């Protein structure tokens, strides 16, 4: 069966899935922190839109609530918090030197292929149209991890962590008919608390090593060498 035979809402959800991966790739190759935060907000918005569409097409009204929570938390609150942190620590003009950007991006592309390979048996188990996007959501998780490996700035690590959470959330949307409300609210709250804690940690790191470059943490020693 081809995508042309599916309904328009399914096509839109699949397209949004592809755009979510694109947002992950853009974050992966971006050296400016404010732009990373902006793309993270954009990814959240795509996610919220996909959730709302899923709510409409599968007739699951409680998806609307998760869509609204996503909208408030991941598009408005957390990006604004990160943005204010970056500006307050006066690192918004720094451009992070990414070593070997092209090979990181191509590594990301191979991660997408790997997650497709891993998820193929699961996709074959069901005839749900949106289940195809589960490989994409695993790819978003892996790309978030790759982002935490390849970037050195702590804010970029937090963005990578948040995009991992986005990937898991997306997997839940496309493969199940929604998580229980308790779980969903709990996760949303956890993410919010994590963002606040990260902010506190930023200040600690920043005040102790005068930078958010985590590579410098290697040089912290009790004794001077």
């Amino acid at each position: 069966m081809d995508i042309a035979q599916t309904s328009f809402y399914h096509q839109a959800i699949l397209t949004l899935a592809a755009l979510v991966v694109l947002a992950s790739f853009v974050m992966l190759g971006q050296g400016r922190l404010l732009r990373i935060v902006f793309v993270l907000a954009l990814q959240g918005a795509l996610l919220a839109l996909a959730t709302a569409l899923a709510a409409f097409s599968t007739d699951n009204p409680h998806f609307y609530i998760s869509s609204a929570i996503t909208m408030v938390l991941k598009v408005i609150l957390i990006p604004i918090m990160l943005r204010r942190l970056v500006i307050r620590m006066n690192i918004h003009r720094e451009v992070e030197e990414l070593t070997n950007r092209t090979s990181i991006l191509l590594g990301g592309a191979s991660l997408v292929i790997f997650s497709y390979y891993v998820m193929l048996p699961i996709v074959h188990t069901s005839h749900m149209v949106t289940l195809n996007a589960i490989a994409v959501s695993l790819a978003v998780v892996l790309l978030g991890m790759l982002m935490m490996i390849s970037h050195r700035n702590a804010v970029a690590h937090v963005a990578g962590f948040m995009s991992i959470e986005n990937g898991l959330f997306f997997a839940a949307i496309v493969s199940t008919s929604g998580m229980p409300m308790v779980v969903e609210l709990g996760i949303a709250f956890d993410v919010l608390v994590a963002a606040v804690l990260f902010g506190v940690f930023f200040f600690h790191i920043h005040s102790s090593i005068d930078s958010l470059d985590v590579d410098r943490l290697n040089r912290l020693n009790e004794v001077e060498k």
Partner: protein
Amino acid sequence: MAWLIALLQTLLFIALAPLLAGWLKCCKCRLQNRRAPSLLQPYRDLRKLSHKQPVVARQASWIFTITPYIVFSATVLAASVVPLIAVDLPTAAIADVIVMVGFFALARFFQALAGMDIGTAFGGMGSSREMTIASLAEPAMLMAIFTLAMSASTTNLSVAIDHVLAGGFVLRPSYVFALLGLMLVAIAETGRIPVDNPATHLELTMIHEAMILEYSGRHLALIEWASQIKLMLYGVLIANIFFPWGIAETYSLEALGSGLLAITGKLALLAVLLALSETLLAKMRLFRVQEFLGFAYLLSLLGMLSHIILEVID
């Protein structure tokens, strides 16, 4: 009848290309608060150049004099493959889209040779830069084309457009990516901002202009015309593959007329978009072009992957 229309379409391609260049210049002038030259100015320039006697350097070999003709005819042959106002033309059945890329490569090869033929420093520099960019742009372009070919199961442009038309409006993630990738490649290949500035003669930044610096008279006219056709060709590719609605499917007069109107409107809109992006963006450093084209390749690759991952449903 079909052959006649095919011939007519190719001639139309050649005749309308300077008009598109004029319209693009007009849009750019408006956006920069300048008074625009007439839409027909490119035609006047071509006529003026073709009346002038070409000056050829004493050391120039036959490659230098034959290159403008090869470049022009290769570009025209490539244009004859692309459906402009009607699909299912006999010329489209002869060659597929990979042959079209091959024609471009042939033209570029001779242009680079001619740039080095005279032995000036600028020519060699321009050739080396052009080949660098081309070697990065070509994989991205082919990847975008393969995405299209996989979903339509053909590399023939006309059949692929038929496939898109038959499907009606389908939102395909792979096409979104292929469209973006092809747009970036088109900007790089036709030498527009931010990769190259077609209006500059500043030594440090020019790429295409450096190669053709030694040309004059009718040779220059042919090369300029060929690059205008190439710009239009990319525009037609983007417009007709991804938004083919309006193209003539029969050979009746009104179908052809509406096809012509549709493609004119689409190209005018694309030119406005291009002028906007050229006004908003600054030219990037030469060494950042690699990243730009790497991103184009990534987009095309993601297009292909999302076709395989998302669009095949069992």
